C-alpha cells in the first residue's frame, strides 16, 4: 500500500507542474493583454503610456522568463498581485471568494448525494417500473432544462410573487443589525435557491451513475448467492448490493472536489453571489494573468488531490486494486 501511495504521489508532481506550464502558456497565448482593457481605443492613452504599463506589468519579458519568475514566487506560495486596478494580492482575493463558494457547492453536493443515491438504488432495484421510468424522465428533464432559465422562473415565483425568498446577493442590507437567528435565516434564505438549483443539475448524473452501478452489482453471483440463502430482498439490496455499488460513486466524489472551489459562473452571475466563479470569469475577461494562474493552480492541485484521495479510498475498500497495482 505504501509503495502504491508513493508511486502515485511521485507521478503527480511532474503532472502538476506540467499543468501549470500549459495553463501559463495557454492564457498568455490567448489574444489580448491586461493593458488592452485600459488602453484600447482610449483617447487619453498614448503609445508611450501603453509601453509603460506593459513594462509595469512585466509583460515585456519573454514568456519563459515570466513563467520561471512565476514559478519562483509560487514555490514560496506567493501568487503575486492581481493586474486589476485594485492591485491586491491574488491570495487575498481568492480567500475572500472561497468560503461562500465552498459553502454552496458543499451543500449542493450533499443534497445531490442524499437524493441521488436513494433514487438510483431504488430505480435499480425496480428497473423499468413506472417509478423508475418517471424518475428517469425527471432527472433527464433536470439535466436538460437550462438552469439559468429555471432560476429566473423560480425567482419570479418565490421572490417577486410570493416574496418568500430574497433575490440576489448573500446578505440583506440591514444584516449587521439582525439578531443571530435573524442573520442565520437571512443567509440561509439567500442560499436556498442557488443550492437547490445547482443540485438539480447534478442530480441526473449521479443518480444515473448510481443506478447503472447498482444494476451491475445486482447481476453478480454473490447477490444470487445472498438471495439463495433466503435473505429478504430488502437485505439483499440495501446491505449487500448498495455497499458495493457505492464504490464508483467514490470516484465521482473525488472528481467533484475541484468543483467545490470552482463554483459556477452561471449561478453566481444570476444570483449575484460574490464567489469564485465570477472571480475567475472577470479575471479571464480582463486577462488578469496572476489571478487566473492562481485559481488554475489551486484548481489543478485540488483535482489531483481529489483523484489521489479517490484512488486511495478505492484501494482501501477494494483489495483488488491494491493487488492489481502491484502486479
Amino acid at each position, binding site marked *: 500500500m505504501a509503495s502504491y501511495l508513493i508511486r502515485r504521489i511521485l507521478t503527480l508532481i511532474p503532472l502538476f507542474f506540467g499543468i501549470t506550464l500549459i495553463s501559463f502558456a495557454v492564457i498568455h497565448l490567448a489574444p489580448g493583454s491586461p493593458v488592452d482593457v485600459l488602453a484600447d481605443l482610449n483617447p*487619453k492613452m498614448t503609445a508611450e503610456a501603453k509601453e509603460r504599463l506593459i513594462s509595469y506589468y512585466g509583460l515585456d519579458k519573454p514568456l519563459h522568463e515570466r513563467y520561471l519568475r512565476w514559478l519562483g514566487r509560487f514555490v514560496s506560495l506567493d501568487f503575486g*498581485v492581481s493586474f*486589476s486596478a485594485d492591485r491586491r494580492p491574488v491570495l487575498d482575493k481568492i480567500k475572500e471568494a472561497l468560503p461562500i463558494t465552498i459553502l454552496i457547492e458543499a451543500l449542493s453536493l450533499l443534497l445531490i448525494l442524499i437524493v441521488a443515491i436513494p433514487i438510483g438504488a431504488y430505480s435499480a432495484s425496480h428497473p423499468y417500473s413506472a417509478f423508475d421510468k418517471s424518475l428517469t424522465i425527471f432527472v433527464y428533464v433536470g439535466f436538460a432544462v437550462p438552469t439559468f432559465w429555471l432560476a429566473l422562473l423560480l425567482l419570479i415565483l418565490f421572490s417577486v*410573487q410570493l*416574496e418568500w425568498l*430574497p433575490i440576489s*446577493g448573500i446578505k440583506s442590507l440591514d444584516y449587521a443589525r439582525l439578531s443571530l437567528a435573524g442573520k442565520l435565516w437571512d443567509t440561509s434564505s439567500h442560499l436556498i435557491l442557488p443550492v437547490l438549483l445547482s443540485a438539480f443539475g447534478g442530480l441526473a448524473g449521479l443518480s444515473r451513475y448510481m443506478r447503472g452501478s447498482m444494476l451491475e452489482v445486482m447481476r453478480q453471483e454473490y447477490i444470487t448467492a445472498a438471495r439463495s440463502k433466503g435473505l429478504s430482498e430488502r437485505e439483499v439490496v440495501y446491505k449487500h448490493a448498495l455497499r458495493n455499488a457505492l464504490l464508483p460513486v467514490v470516484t465521482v466524489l473525488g472528481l467533484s472536489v475541484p468543483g467545490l472551489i470552482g463554483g459556477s459562473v452561471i449561478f453566481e452571475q*444570476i444570483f449575484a453571489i460574490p464567489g469564485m466563479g465570477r472571480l475567475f470569469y472577470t479575471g479571464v475577461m480582463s486577462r488578469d494573468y496572476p489571478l487566473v494562474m492562481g485559481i488554475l493552480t489551486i484548481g489543478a492541485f485540488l483535482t489531483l488531490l481529489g483523484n489521489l484521495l479517490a484512488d486511495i479510498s478505492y484501494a482501501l475498500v477494494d483489495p483488488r486494486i491494491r493487488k492489481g497495482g502491484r502486479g
Partner: protein
Amino acid sequence: MRNRDQRRRFFHGYLSLFFFLLSVALSLGGCGGGERAETKDSKRQPLISSPQPAYGDTLVEGSIGEATNLIPMLSSDSASHDIAGLIFNGLVKYDKDVNLVGDLAESWEVSGDGLQITFKLRRGVKWQDGYPFTAKDVLFGFQTITNPNTPTAYAEDFRQVKKAEALDDYTFRVTYEKPFAPALTSWGNLVVLPKHLIEGKDIAKSELGRKPIGTGPYRFREWISRDRVVLEANPDYFEGRAYLDRYVIRVIPDLATMFLELKAGGLDLMNLTPIQYSRQTDDRFFQRNFRKYRYLANAYTYLGYNLLEPKFKDQRVRQAISYAIDKEEIVKVVLLGLGAPATGPYKPGLWFYNPGVRKYPYDPAKALALLKEAGWEDRNGDGILDKDGQPFEFTVITNEGNPVRQRTAVVIQERLKKIGIRMKIRVIEWSAFINEFIDKKDFEATILGWTTGFEPDQFDIWHSSKTGKKELNFISFKNREVDELLEKGRRTFDQEKRRAIYFRLQEILAEEQPYTFLYVPEALPIVHSRVYGIEPSPLGISYNFHRWFAPQGLQRYERLALAP
C-alpha cells in the same frame, strides 16, 4: 468607452439569448405580480405635490460591474468613477448647463497668452479624516499622476504642463508648454489626492483605493467584494450635507436578475435596457413606484471606412452609402426608438454641437445617382453594382458581444443590398478585433462607437498625425483644414471662437463622411418615485446626487447616526 463597452460585451452575449426566454417566463409567471405588489406599495404612494427636502433614507442602486479602485486616476471603469465621483472633488466641475464652474477652486485666471492658469482654492475645506485641504494636495496629485511609476491611463493631459506650483496654501498655478484649451477641464477629480495619507507610499498599493478619503459629499463606509459598496453622507461637506443618508451600490452582474430585484423592491435605481424601458415598465406598478428618465448618452455609433481602400477614397461613394442607410430605421428597430440619428461626432444639445450640417436622409435614388457619378453601375444585370468589372462588395467588421452593433450591421446590410452593394458582416472577439484588424488597418469598414464628453477636442481621432499603427485615426482620415481646426481648437480659450472652430469641423466631417455617423443611444435610468430633486440635464441625472432627497413619510430605511 472601453470599459462600459466591455462589460456590456460580457453580459449581453448570453443575455440576449435568454431575453426571449425571460419574456416567456414573465408571461408564465402570470400578470398577477404587478397587482399584488401594487396593493403592498399603495399606502406610501400618494404623490406629494410640493415635497419638502428632508434628511435620511438610503438609495440602493444596481450595477452590473464592480468598481476596481476608488482612487480615480488608477481606475478606468465607469463603476469606479461613478462611486469615486461622490467621494472626491476636482478643482473644477460642470454645472447643470455644462458650463465649467469651480469645485475646490473658488475661481481661476487664465493668463493672456493662455499658457498659465492660476486657481484660487476654497478655504476651510477638510478631508474626511479632518485634515485641512490645501494647494499642496493638488500639487501632490499632479506629481503623482505624471509620475511614470503610477499606472494611470490619464497622464497625457498633465504631461502638457511645464510647471506646477503651490504658491501658497490656497493658490495653485500651472504653466503649459503651449496653449492647451482642454487644460481647464482636465483639472477635475482625477488629480486631487490627500497628500498626508499617500506621500511616501506606492499609490498603486495604497489602501485608499479600497477605503478612500476625499472631500466630497459622501464618505466611504464599507466595501464587500463583488457584492456592494456602501457610502454615507459626509456631514461636513462644504456645499452642505447631502440629504440621502446612505448610498448603496449593489453589484448584480445579470440584467434580468437586476430587473427582478427592482420589481421586488430591492433596488431604487438602475439603468434599463431599451426593451425594459419600452415594453416592461409601463404597467401601473411601475407608474406608481418609479420614474423613468431618458437622455442622450455620451456616445455615438458609426460606420467607419478605411480610407486607404480604393473604393472608399471617393467621397461620393461614402456619401452614397450614407444616403442608402436609413438611420431612423436603425434607431427604431435596433434601439426601439430610444436614441437619435447622429449627424457628427458630438452629442446634440451641447454648445459645440452644430445642428446645421449637411444631413443624409434616406434617399436610395440619390445614392444611386452619386454612385453612378463615381462610376458604379450595374452593367451586367446581376443586381450588384460594378466598376471596371469588379462588383461592389465589402466586409464590415465589428466586435463580438455587442448585439446592438451586430443588429445595426444587419439592418445596413439589407439597405445596401437594395441599391446593389453586397456587404458581408464579420464579428470578431474584442482583443483580436483591435490587435489584428483595427490596429493593423486590416479592414474595409467597421461598425464601432466612441464615447464623447463635454470637451470638443477630438485631436486623436481626426488629426492626420494620428494615423500611425495603433493610433485612433485608424481610418486614415487626412484633411488639411481639419488639422488646422483641431490645432486651433486646442489653442483657443474663448468659447465663442471655439464654437466657430468646431462648427466648421463638423461641416467638413458631414461633407466628407469619413464615417457614416449612425446614432446616439439614450441612457435610460429608472428611479424610485419617493426620490425627489432629480433635474435631468445634458450631464445626465446623477450630477446633483447630493441634492436628491426622500420627503419625510416616504422614507423607507432607518435614519443613520452619522458621527461627524
